């Protein structure tokens, strides 16, 4: 058998064997190993687990405009080290990604710095300048390479405009990703509204600010019979509404983020700006509801909402700190912690981080079947690493995990059959 690459001694579904790759595609996994393959290149996988490359449908790479927080190069470095082979980047750059030239610039930066991946898929602005007033030139953005549309960060209040955006984008075969937030209800809010905000004297963001908009989107999707993807769901009531919508076969899909599965509002105590994120970290009960929702497929996708900020921006009083948690470096290990705790399985993670995102946004995924794209990484489940400025490749070190020891690490990452990251 002809092959470009054989990755030897790796473990797939509890079986140790060799993975054979040819012309950037999966050829075969041979349990027990093979001697009959003539490969141009051999790589010893040392018994590490074989995982398909993850897809992150919600990141902020900050370029153009905020390169001091992150740029496309550093963001993609963090992605590949974190297990992600493809990322979808939100439009709240400066200038906003509401024209083909910005989309093309982003794609060119990605190709220049990472010609062999990880792969960047820009998300176009839903409205011009993200102002919520006029639709952006969606066809132009789609043609330039955008894979979805969103007003993430600045939710569209105007229901009529939102309806037209959903309709227009469906003509282009692309989905709208909605940031679910009623900005009147969340106005000037700094953290989850509840016991902790009352104690700390911080203005709260009520969970109903999210659920109100989730309900709107569900009703809109039902009325139009068109899909809408709900971003970063954070609370139990949203989960209950989404479960109801799915029972009714309303074409709603939804994502949540690792940080909503592992942390709650109590992390804000001491005015911890690293735990300041929008939507905010909610209650323990919301965390449990979300864990159940991802297990039971009510929530389809895990996404990081990777939001890097410079250290000096978070080193301010809580009210002044920007929202956001840097997530690409830590997402997999945080979620693998949930696997170790028995909350999720490896299969759940692959469904949430690979299969569902690929299906919803029409991206290529690897299921280790012959002909699949050879995007995969070797994962060391026993490896322990401490989250710190040196161990994170993102420019943004803003995560509540800072200083924590996490289990599980990406050791080597191959895209289209080519080694693009190696820690071995």
């Amino acid at each position: 058998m002809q092959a470009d690459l054989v990755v030897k001694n790796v473990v797939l579904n509890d079986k140790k064997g060799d993975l054979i790759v040819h012309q950037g595609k999966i050829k075969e996994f041979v349990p027990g190993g093979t001697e009959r393959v003539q490969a141009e290149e051999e790589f010893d996988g040392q018994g590490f687990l074989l995982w398909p490359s993850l897809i992150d449908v919600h990141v902020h790479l900050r370029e153009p405009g905020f390169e001091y927080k992150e740029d496309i190069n550093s963001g993609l470095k963090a992605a590949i080290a974190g297990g992600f082979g493809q990322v979808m980047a939100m439009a709240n750059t400066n200038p906003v990604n509401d024209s083909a030239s910005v989309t093309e610039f982003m794609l060119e930066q990605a190709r220049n710095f990472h010609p062999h991946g990880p792969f960047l898929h820009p998300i176009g602005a839903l409205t011009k300048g993200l102002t919520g007033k006029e639709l952006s030139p969606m066809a132009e953005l789609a043609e330039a390479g955008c894979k979805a549309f969103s007003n993430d960060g600045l939710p569209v209040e105007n229901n009529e405009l939102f309806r037209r955006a959903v309709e227009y984008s469906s003509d282009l075969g692309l989905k709208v990703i909605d940031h679910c937030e009623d900005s009147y209800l969340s106005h000037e809010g700094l953290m989850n509204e509840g016991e902790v905000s009352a104690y700390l004297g911080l203005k709260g963001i009520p969970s109903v600010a999210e659920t109100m908009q989730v309900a709107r989107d569900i009703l809109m999707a039902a009325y139009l019979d068109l899909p809408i993807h709900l971003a970063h769901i954070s609370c139990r009531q949203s989960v209950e509404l989404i479960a109801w919508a799915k029972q009714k076969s309303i074409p709603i899909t939804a994502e949540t983020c690792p940080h909503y599965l592992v942390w709650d509002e109590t992390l804000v105590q001491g005015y911890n700006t690293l735990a300041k994120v929008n939507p905010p970290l909610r209650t323990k009960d919301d965390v449990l509801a979300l864990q159940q929702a991802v297990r039971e497929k009510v929530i389809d996708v895990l996404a990081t909402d990777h939001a890097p900020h410079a250290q000096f921006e978070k080193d301010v009083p809580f009210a002044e700190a920007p929202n956001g948690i840097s997530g690409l470096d830590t997402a997999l290990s945080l979620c693998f912690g949930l696997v170790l705790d028995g909350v999720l399985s490896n299969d759940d993670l692959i469904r949430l981080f690979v299969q569902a995102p690929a299906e919803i946004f029409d991206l290529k995924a690897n299921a280790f079947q012959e002909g699949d794209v050879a995007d995969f990484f070797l994962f060391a489940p026993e490896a322990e690493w401490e989250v710190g400025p040196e161990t994170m490749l993102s420019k943004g070190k803003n995560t509540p995990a800072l200083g924590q020891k996490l289990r599980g690490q990406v050791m080597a990452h191959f895209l289209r059959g080519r080694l693009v990251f190696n820690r071995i």
Partner: protein
Amino acid sequence: MHWSHKDLLDVSQLSVEEIRHVFETARHFLEINRRPVKKVPTLKGKSVVLFFAEPSTRTKTSFDMAAKRLSADSFSLSKSGSSLLKGESLKDTALTLQAMRPDAIVVRHSFSGAAEFLAKNLYCTVINAGDGWHAHPTQALLDGFTLSQVWESFENREILILGDIAHSRVARSDIILLTKLGARVRLCAPRTLLPFDVKNWPVTLFTDLERACEGVDAIICLRLQLERQEAGLLPDLREYAQRYGLARKHLALAKDDVKIMHPGPMNRGVEISSELADGDRSLILDQVEAGVAVRMAVLYLYLARPGTQLHH
């Protein structure tokens, strides 16, 4: 008593014994303040920066007077007079101040947590003179001290805090301090001015002022910020004054010797009638007098502790 705290951020840091020790210390200073010569050399050579990034008259003056009566040197800095207006971060402003080697920074800021933020970044003592909606420890201490001057014990005392609780740092600190001392605390306000989730707070909630006043030993009125109406939390001030303004008729429902308090500045005719503010049940001016003594006690305890001159 050995005083081990570096900073005063909220009364939740203080034990009951420590609160009583502040009161005991303040009692001595109250006596000094009533002498013809009101100055002692206790903190001679110490420097105190009064960093008020939010408008304040009485708290700032009270701290200033307290520092001077203890012979400390006090320096004032307001937001308008600082580089904060030029875009400098709070941390950089504070580090600049620290480089001038003060012994304490007394800070008032509109952000909850600002004092804690500074305390984490500075070696010198930080005293919270009010941060956002969060805490106002010296106000709580002076409120408690004022009541301790008229009551032997706080046990079984019913104290009503009336008004804009949601946005009040005074209320939050008073609740902690008064319940620590053994009093029972009631809160009364329209629901729009109560914090959203206080089910675990050691308080009883009322939205009806007459019921809230029944049998209380003291009523602490809070200032209503007039912009609450513009924020949609109240229909208008007239309606608020009618439903939640403390008036003579409410006194009949309270204990005969009920005490009336207010942290000031007052909106007469809105949260409290002028007649009650100036009446014989009012402790409002006693609070102001107590404020200087309590702040002298705080500065003394924090700055005269051993090792305070060794900041790096």
